[in-house]
């Protein structure tokens, strides 16, 4: 029951943060391109609830769900979006590159698939050092078109690394559907021929994703293939069903409503409402901190390009 509440806290936090963004983006104070997670909340929430504090996360530019599910750092998140020093990267990263290694989120890559080999390397270090950490790398199905994906998959399987690949398939790479990008019928069948464990689960129900995520048995890489529907445009806060490249689904499943229902059944309506109230208060507080914080001083522009420290 406790975990179920935490799972709902995760999906609701992601949704409520993005709802705030949608409402306030037009004010032009968050000057950073946003690739919204809306519709895909259950995946990061379920996977990271399962792996827990051992997770070292890596993702693409679609950062919001992974960042919040891993770090719960609402204050830093908004600080970064507002370009302020209260962000974990002091405004250098924005939405696309936000990272917070201390809290477990290592890398957000603006280049499709570039985060995947980095996660493989960290998994190698974890294995070599014998710690219990798990590298968890999130990527869209578009990344499976990239050479870096196949190179990384091969390497991880060859070295039998403790890594969790999470392929979040929303059928689209920007606006291009899978059938215009794939010279094969079924990516899962191809990937499953590698030396790994394969999990397939729809990505709408956070509790199901959590259940399905293997959190031990990392003697081989684990590949979790999941599907979801991207509610908004590729980049930006608008719906784009009128753009002509895709249709509004007849029955659009809402990961937040699904998990809310589970949680009410497992706990109570008042527990759910308490979580929602707490999260909304934290967002209000986080935005207030971000707005009061300073922009980075321009004198810091050239700081930190090199660490200039010889051990």
């Amino acid at each position, binding site marked *: 029951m406790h975990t179920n509440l935490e799972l709902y806290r995760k999906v609701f936090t992601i949704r409520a943060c993005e709802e705030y963004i949608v409402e306030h983006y037009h004010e032009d104070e968050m000057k950073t391109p946003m690739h919204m997670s809306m519709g895909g909340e259950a995946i990061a929430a379920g996977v990271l609830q399962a792996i827990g504090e051992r997770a070292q996360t890596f993702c693409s530019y679609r950062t919001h769900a992974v960042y919040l599910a891993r770090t719960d750092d609402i204050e830093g998140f908004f600080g970064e979006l507002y370009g302020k020093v209260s962000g974990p990267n002091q405004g250098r990263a924005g939405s696309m590159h936000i990272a*917070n290694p201390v809290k477990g989120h290592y890398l957000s890559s603006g280049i499709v698939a570039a985060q995947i080999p980095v996660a493989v*390397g960290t998994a190698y270090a*974890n294995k070599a050092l014998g710690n219990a950490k798990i590298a968890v790398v999130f990527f869209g199905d578009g990344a499976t078109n990239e050479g870096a994906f196949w190179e990384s998959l091969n390497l991880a399987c*060859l070295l039998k690394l403790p890594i969790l690949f999470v392929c979040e398939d929303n059928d689209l790479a920007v606006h291009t559907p899978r059938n215009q990008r794939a010279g094969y019928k079924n990516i899962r069948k191809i990937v499953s021929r590698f030396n790994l464990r394969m999990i397939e689960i729809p990505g709408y129900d956070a509790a199901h994703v959590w259940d399905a995520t293997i959190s031990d048995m990392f003697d081989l890489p684990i590949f979790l293939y999941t599907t979801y529907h991207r509610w908004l445009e590729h980049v930006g806060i608008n719906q784009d069903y009128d753009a002509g490249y895709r249709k509004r689904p007849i029955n659009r499943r809402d990961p937040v409503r699904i998990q809310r229902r589970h949680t009410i059944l497992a706990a109570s309506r008042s527990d759910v409402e308490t979580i929602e109230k707490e999260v909304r208060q934290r967002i209000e507080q986080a935005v207030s901190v971000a707005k009061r914080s300073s922009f980075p001083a321009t004198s810091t522009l050239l700081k930190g390009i090199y660490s200039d420290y010889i051990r």
Partner: protein
Amino acid sequence: MTTYAEAIDQALIQEMERDESVFVYGIGVPDHKKVFGTTANLPRDRSLDTPLSEDALLGFGVGAALGGLRPVNVHIRIDFLLLAMNQLANIVSTHHYITGQQIPLVIRAIVGRGWGQGCHHSKSMHSTFAHIPGLKVYMPVTPYDAKGLLVAAIRDNDPVLLIEHRWLYWAEGDVPEESYVVQPKAKVIRKGSDLTVIATSWLCVEALHAAEILAKHDVSVEVVDLCSAQPLDIVTLANSVDKTGVCLVADNDWVHCGLGAEVVAQVQEECFDDLTAPILRVGFAPSPCPTARCLENAFYPNAATIIHKVKDLLDLDPIDLSHEEFYAHERRFKGPF
């Protein structure tokens, strides 16, 4: 005496003994050829052979560094490193600036030349790498520097690219047995008073040869080994040019948009009042590197090219080079790689 290749091997072994987080990886690193002997004596469990996946393997190095190791990634030709340009320009160089997380990663890349290496096994392109903020780019010339700069790179918490010229691997020199660090500073490798030649990589060897020949004609050439493309040690370069007033840049790369252009720009900013002639440059011909020997000879500058430029700069009488013997690598190197 120790060869350049042995000096690299020594540095790697000693750093591995000093710090158990150091490991070396790359295509063919532990195979029987041992990357021209530069990985000859490494412990097998810390030298990792890899799939042919340069792009992913550089990202792998970043991740391993983030995870607490100190990786050394080896590319037997720098041309192959270009496959990993995405990681280099987008991740390796930016990650510390964005996140504050250090990437203690070393990349060793080898410049090939001669006996038909051709257009995919002969590049250097150090200006391309030095152009990117966040990378350090060293080009050791002597065995002493090869060891000391590699040790410095491994201990550095920033990513460092070492560019090693294939022809320097046989160079011999005094190399202390113990471990030591060399700072990436330019160095005067021959003193002179009439003209400064600022040279990189193999062209330091050619510049020294040119200086020897010119000395017989009463021309005193100072040769400065640039040593590091990033950071660029403009102080040492400018001090030499201040003294001689004349400067030639001999860069082991294409001239157009090359490192020589950056050196010229910075030297003239520092030394404008002391210069008595425009700064000239020599480097590769502006073509892809061809295979046939006669074309290869025309593609690469050598000591004779440098001497002719010096003659122009100092307005000397024609110099008879017909009795001089120039470096012909075939006497030692008959391929295949």
